[in-house]
């Protein structure tokens, strides 16, 4: 019989860049989970992109063994992503734990996501243990931050561990706090199996792998298990834990975190948040599970080479195996051909997926400008959900359009309040509240259209506050707005992939910015090319790309044909990133970059 009092299940939550992955590294190192020789930075971040960007995208669990006061404890750590796009990943791991380490940067203090993540932890009835990181920094203001944690969050921080994960200072205090403050799991391994799937990924050999937290009962190889939501039954082929690589074990029982494989062919048969129980003696009530995540940002993805459509499809299918939140459906664009309209949790998610498509699958892709999903009410009473501006019905058929809005919370030093208010104003924000959390920190609350957030809000916020402001948002429903579609004409031909839905008051400015931007991006063509922006049939802006003048190899030296041919082949090669729309050639980057034109213009 296992002693549950020697198990702790916990995760680390923090604002992005406050040092979660570094602390995880130190904990792994100190407990000797990974030998010094195999240790590397961000050890739980296995994706190339995670390491490069220094962020965690997928959650990753690992089991640590630690001797404390003569007893051997099993500590299950679940590393979580920090970026707001991946909040749902955080909430998943929380449901598998009894407690959370709340990591706060000693110089930055409490930030928007510190608070947001704390609330998430409280919602999940977790014991939250504050911990101050980066005390080695010259700018560290440990005592003040302690006070902030008490004032802003309301957690007792008087004896919280003050550490430097980077330099390995006071890491033992963190381990001590985990053991002494976070409760041990409760559960009965003699009861029927009750386990939560908190994540899944796909393995080419073993099929879908379910990451589970066992609450009651026990699971071992050969057991028949029932997925309560999907109603499917599988025979368990492998049971294991993460150390942090997978290691098979005989069984997982109440209180444990690990994985099961059961020859599950399709990832669709595994629903994250589902409850796993015994097929023979099923429990009657499933665990609460999770809300299904809905994508909020959409864009079209096409291949530069039209012939690679199927490769793109395969790549998206493969990414979807490990990323249930990615959605996609076929789309046809007159300008770009066959592709997919894809839904994402946010811009970072979008950026990560497109980068993975290019790197891991070696595809040259064209991404259209991100859009949100609008509710379009037609005069005939019909309601359409439109996430592709091209599909917006003609203005006469529309009675009203509603756009998604978000509640945002912005943390900032007081001196930037004015700048942020200006920004929110420009972005059609509605002021809700402002609170001085302490002398150095103000929390501003605004309701903003999501469409404005995805349009470089984050970059503007960072640049206007010198990077001091932090920001978090949650979807807050739909709201009517005066929106119009701006179309782009190239050489008189409409390019559907460049259409945008914008607020009427901004249409002219945006149209002008867009045409100017395209003029810069599109190289000279054989003929003069007019670029026009229009609403319906009304032209609102125009620029002209003048015709190419000199592009010729003049001399042929003593029969050196090869040099000439190679120069032209090179020129052709350089065109691979171009897409031809009518008779105009456009660099594939143009479609995405039309979104990034605010500040620098």
């Amino acid at each position, binding site marked *: 019989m296992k002693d549950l009092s020697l198990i702790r299940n916990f995760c680390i939550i923090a604002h992005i860049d406050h040092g979660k992955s570094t602390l995880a590294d130190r904990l792994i190192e100190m407990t000797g989970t990974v030998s010094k020789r195999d240790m590397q930075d961000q050890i739980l971040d296995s994706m190339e992109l995670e390491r490069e960007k220094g962020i965690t995208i997928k959650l990753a669990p690992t089991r640590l063994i630690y001797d404390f006061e003569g007893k051997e404890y099993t500590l299950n750590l679940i590393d979580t992503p920090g970026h707001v796009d991946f909040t749902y990943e955080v909430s998943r791991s929380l449901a598998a734990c009894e407690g959370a380490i709340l990591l706060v940067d000693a110089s930055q203090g409490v930030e928007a996501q510190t608070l947001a993540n704390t609330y998430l932890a409280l919602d999940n009835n977790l014991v939250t243990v504050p911990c101050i990181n980066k005390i080695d920094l010259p700018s560290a203001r440990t005592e003040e931050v302690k006070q902030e944690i008490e004032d802003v969050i309301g957690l007792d921080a008087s004896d919280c561990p003050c550490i430097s994960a980077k330099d390995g200072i006071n890491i033992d205090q963190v381990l001590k706090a985990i053991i002494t403050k976070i409760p041990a799991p409760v559960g009965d391994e003699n009861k029927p199996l009750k386990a939560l799937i908190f994540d899944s990924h796909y393995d080419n050999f073993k099929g879908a792998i379910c990451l589970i937290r066992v609450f009651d009962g026990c699971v071992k190889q050969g057991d028949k298990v029932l997925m309560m939501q999907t109603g499917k039954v599988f025979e368990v082929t492998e049971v294991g834990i993460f150390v942090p690589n997978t290691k098979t074990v005989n069984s997982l029982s109440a209180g444990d975190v690990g994985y099961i494989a059961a020859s599950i062919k399709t990832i669709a048969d595994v629903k994250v948040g589902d409850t796993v129980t015994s097929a023979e003696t099923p429990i009657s009530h499933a665990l609460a599970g999770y809300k299904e995540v809905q994508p909020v940002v959409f864009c079209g993805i096409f291949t530069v*080479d039209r012939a690679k459509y199927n490769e793109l499809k395969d790549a998206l299918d493969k990414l979807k195996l490990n990323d249930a939140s990615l959605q996609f459906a076929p789309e046809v664009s007159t300008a770009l051909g066959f592709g997919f309209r894809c839904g994402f949790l946010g811009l970072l998610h979008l950026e990560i997926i497109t980068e993975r498509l290019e790197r891991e699958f070696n595809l040259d892709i064209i991404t259209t400008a991100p859009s949100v999903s609008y509710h379009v009410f037609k005069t005939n009473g019909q309601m359409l959900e439109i996430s592709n501006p091209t599909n917006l019905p003609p203005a006469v058929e529309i009675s009203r359009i509603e756009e998604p809005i978000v509640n945002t919370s912005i943390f900032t030093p007081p001196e930037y309040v004015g700048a942020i208010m200006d920004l929110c104003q420009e972005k059609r924000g509605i002021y809700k509240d402002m609170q001085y959390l302490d002398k150095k920190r103000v929390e501003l609350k605004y309701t903003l259209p999501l469409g404005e957030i995805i349009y470089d809000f984050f970059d503007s916020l960072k640049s206007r506050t010198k990077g001091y402001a932090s920001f978090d948002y949650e979807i807050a429903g739909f709201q009517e707005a005066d929106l119009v579609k701006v179309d782009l004409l190239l050489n008189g031909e409409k390019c559907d992939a460049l259409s945008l839905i914008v607020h009427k008051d901004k249409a002219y400015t945006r149209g002008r910015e867009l045409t100017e931007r395209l003029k810069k991006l599109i190289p000279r063509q054989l003929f003069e090319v007019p670029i026009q922006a229009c609403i319906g049939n009304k032209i609102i802006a125009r620029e002209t790309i003048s015709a190419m003048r*000199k592009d*010729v190899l*003049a001399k*042929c030296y003593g029969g*050196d*044909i*090869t040099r000439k041919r190679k120069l*032209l082949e090179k020129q*052709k090669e350089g065109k691979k990133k171009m897409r031809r729309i009518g008779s105009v050639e456009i660099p594939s980057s143009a479609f995405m970059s039309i979104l990034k034109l605010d500040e620098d213009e």
Partner: protein
Amino acid sequence: MKDISLYIHIPFCEKKCAYCAFNSFCAKDDVKEKYISLLCDEIKRRKLPRIVKTIYFGGGTPSTLFPAQFKRIYDCIYDNFDVYDNAEFTVECNPNSITEELLKCYKSCRVNRLSIGVQSLSNKSLKKIGRLHDKQTALDKIKLARKYFDNISCDLIVGLEGEDGKALTGYAKQLLTLGIKHISCYFLEVYQNTPLFKMIEEKKYKPLTDEEQISAFEKLSNYLIDAGMERYEISNFAYPEYESKHNTNYWKRGEYLGFGISAHSFIDGVRTENAATLDDYKMGITTSEKLTVKEEDEEKIMLGLRCNLGVNLKELKVDLKENPYYKDYIKQGILTEKEGLVKLNPMFYQISNTIISNLFEK
């Protein structure tokens, strides 16, 4: 037996021009003698059962060779190859190095065409770009050469500082008056590591902008065409029957052998380039490339569209009509097609790179 063209590269110059990035250099007499020996060895070594239809001495400056040196090479060619009686035989000359003695020598060696590097008729320009002649020398030497030769071509550079269309047509007029039958007009190309590049960097020289060059070229081109010449290739103008047969052979992808350093050959579908340094050349180092079907098509398209010969669709392996650009170009009047022969509208010569490369297969 098949026809062939011969190219002989003479890398020597009396002085290197400010814009020059070619394989040419000033050399002492013993180096020249040595080079001629190597050249003759190569001619003997590479002799082929072909009949020679054109011979071309290029450089560098072939006219820097003394008559005796020239004759040595000439003899070697005629000893080793069958040459048509009416073969076109061109020698590139600098105005400065033309002498009556040299002209007589050429005449006796069956040379029947001269290509004179005039480049400009502005003393200021000629001096700045480091040419050894001035305007008067150029005109005098052309007059002298005309006594011996009917078929003379002159080179002009488009893009030199201050030389707009008006200046260039003025030069052309003087040249035509002197009985010049062929004019090659080249854009000034500025290469890194040339004195001209440095002068431009230091703002001591200001060539025409692209726009100005195009406009100057157009004026010059219109003038020459009005004078009865035909623009039979992007950079070449000639009165009827005076087109360069040697260059036309390149464009038609006919066979040729090139002798000397950096010289190019094209035999049996293989393109070969001789080594660029004397030492490597001495050892007989060459690089060769057997063209793929795709590369052959690309050459045919590139060369055919650059001149008034056009591209014969039947000679291509690729179906050009399947190219997405082709249809548009026909529709826009950029290309014309008549009985399978496709030509580039001369209005678009100056932006032909984009058009041609777009017609290359992916």
